């Protein structure tokens, strides 16, 4: 009878298990590919009223934050290589409530990043079809097509989509190289080193105001941590892949900022149109402004390759969103059907379909709500900062309570690194209170909805067999054993 129970348990675990095919190059491609959309749009909104030097300093602050964050995250994700990364960290360090808050934060971060990227992909396609007056209808239809196509591709299989991700990431980098080359034809240092360097009215406040939008350069790279459950030898592949991806991205950030701001006379025009509409295709806008952009082949060559960048990121983001929904569903924190995987392909079909439907709903809503992209960017970055701070708290707790957990990989600069992440992320949250778009009430509402579901529906139904729960119970058992 016990043997039969064991067999049933094994079958159940098998039903919720993912494959482990990802290696260093796959992790690098996932890290670069998922974030590269940040180079194509979103960051440009930071230029509004702040200027290029403020954006450069804010971008460097963000690069330091993310470099230290990915190293600290590698330590956590190697110690607990589960698809529900933040859920597992919070669950093991404190209790299921913190696990849920962290998992929900990352779900919101990924979901809103996915929405913004789908819309911006549609924006680039609409610009390509009619550079003079991009149609909002074409933007929405193109965004919906992207959502449908990549939902199907992700359902197809993780190894197959990882190969596609590598190819698209190379395409996205090529798109940026083409942009740098074209923008360089109209580059001038005088447009970068403007006088005064920071706006007189704002001074150093301009740098702080730029930070929330500059976070978009690199936000969501932590999706890679969710791949630890699908990574071959995660203690080796995750740190190497993440560090490589982060360094590649820092180079891309600096060069894209430099050539975009150095090629146009007024960098403000990359943030908003003359009528006040926010721009979701800044690099295409740069090319449309400079003399070489009058050549259709230049605009179309860049535009077509740029779409690779957008869809590479969309592809990685829907991966992160669906894996987080899958992990929360598998552990019982969200409806259980989200935790099922396809019987032969081992991909989380239900989670993919639900996340894609939510994205499609917001894409359609963009027809009536024109600030959708800025809103999605800011909600995504704010929820990201919330869980970075909580994750560093978990790292401190677990290092002290269970040092053996980090035997396979320990980040360098052991004490200063988490402290830096903590301070920079806290500063990031502080500056949200000063920006134009008031997203704090919306974000608070999203957390309230999640917590209500957790307390009234999910709390009694947490699945004891989920890997995150098994890991947390092992921790508790070890502590009880030690105290006895």
């Amino acid at each position, binding site marked *: 009878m016990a043997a039969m129970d064991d067999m049933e348990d094994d079958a159940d675990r098998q039903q919720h298990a993912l494959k482990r095919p990802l290696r260093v190059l796959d992790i690098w491609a996932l890290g670069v590919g998922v974030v590269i959309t940040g180079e194509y749009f979103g960051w440009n909104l930071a230029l509004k009223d702040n200027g290029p*030097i403020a954006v*450069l*300093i804010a971008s*460097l*602050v963000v*690069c*330091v934050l993310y*470099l*230290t964050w990915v*190293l600290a995250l590698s330590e956590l994700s190697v110690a607990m290589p589960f698809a529900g990364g933040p859920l597992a960290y919070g669950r093991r360090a404190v209790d299921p409530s913190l696990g849920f808050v962290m998992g929900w934060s990352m779900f919101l971060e990924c979901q809103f990043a996915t929405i913004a990227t789908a819309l911006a992909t549609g924006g680039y396609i609409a610009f390509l079809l009619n550079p003079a007056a991009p149609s909002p209808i074409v933007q929405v239809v193109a965004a919906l097509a992207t959502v449908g196509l990549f939902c199907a591709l992700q359902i197809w299989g993780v190894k197959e989509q990882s190969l596609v991700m590598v190819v698209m990431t190379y395409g996205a980098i090529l798109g940026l190289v083409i942009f740098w080359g074209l923008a360089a034809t109209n580059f001038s240092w005088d447009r970068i080193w403007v006088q*005064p*360097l*920071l706006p007189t009215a704002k*001074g*150093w*406040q301009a*740098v*702080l105001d730029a930070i929330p939008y500059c976070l978009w350069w690199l936000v969501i790279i932590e999706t890679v941590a969710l791949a630890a459950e699908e990574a071959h030898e995660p203690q*080796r592949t995750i*740190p*190497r892949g993440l*560090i490589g991806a982060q*360094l590649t991205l*820092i180079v891309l950030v600096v060069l894209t900022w430099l050539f975009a701001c150095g090629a146009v006379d007024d960098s403000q025009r990359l943030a908003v149109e003359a009528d006040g509409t926010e721009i979701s295709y800044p690099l295409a806008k740069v090319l449309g402004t400079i003399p070489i952009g009058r050549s259709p082949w230049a605009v179309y060559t860049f535009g077509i390759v740029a779409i690779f960048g957008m869809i590479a990121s969309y592809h990685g983001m829907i991966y992160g969103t669906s894996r987080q929904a899958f992990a929360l569903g598998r552990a019982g924190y969200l409806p259980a059907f989200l935790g099922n995987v396809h019987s032969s392909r081992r991909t989380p079909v239900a989670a993919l379909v639900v996340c894609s439907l939510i994205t499609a709903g917001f894409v359609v809503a963009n027809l009536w709500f024109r600030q959708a992209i800025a809103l999605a960017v800011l909600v995504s970055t704010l929820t990201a900062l919330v869980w970075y701070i909580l994750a560093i708290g978990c790292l401190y707790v677990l290092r002290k309570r269970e040092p053996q957990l980090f035997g396979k*990989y*320990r*980040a*360098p*600069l052991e*004490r*200063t*690194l988490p*402290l*830096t992440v903590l*301070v*920079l992320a806290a*500063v990031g949250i*502080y500056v949200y209170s000063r920006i134009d778009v008031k997203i704090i009430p919306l974000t608070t509402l999203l957390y309230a909805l999640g917590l209500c579901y957790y307390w009234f529906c999910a709390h009694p139904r947490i699945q004891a067999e989920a890997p995150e729960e098994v890991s947390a119970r092992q921790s508790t058992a070890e502590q009880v054993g030690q105290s006895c």
Partner: protein
Amino acid sequence: MLKPLDNPHATNAPEPERPAPRRLLLEPIGAAVLLLVVLCLSWMIFTAHAPGLMRLASLEIEVMIVVGVLVAALVLVSVVALLHTRDR
């Protein structure tokens, strides 16, 4: 004669990590520069609220110092992280 697998001194446990000498030198410098980044950011927030206090000779010098500290932090942390990965 003992075969390698029978050697009682042989073990499958991983060797304890020994940082390379270069890393031993770079780690404290990297940590110090990260603390400087935190100080710079605190100064920025202070200056944003009280623009007339704690200022250097010119805005250009302030910008160059802040950018220098941030770039130094990025370079040092990257080098330390890469050496750390290679040591393993």
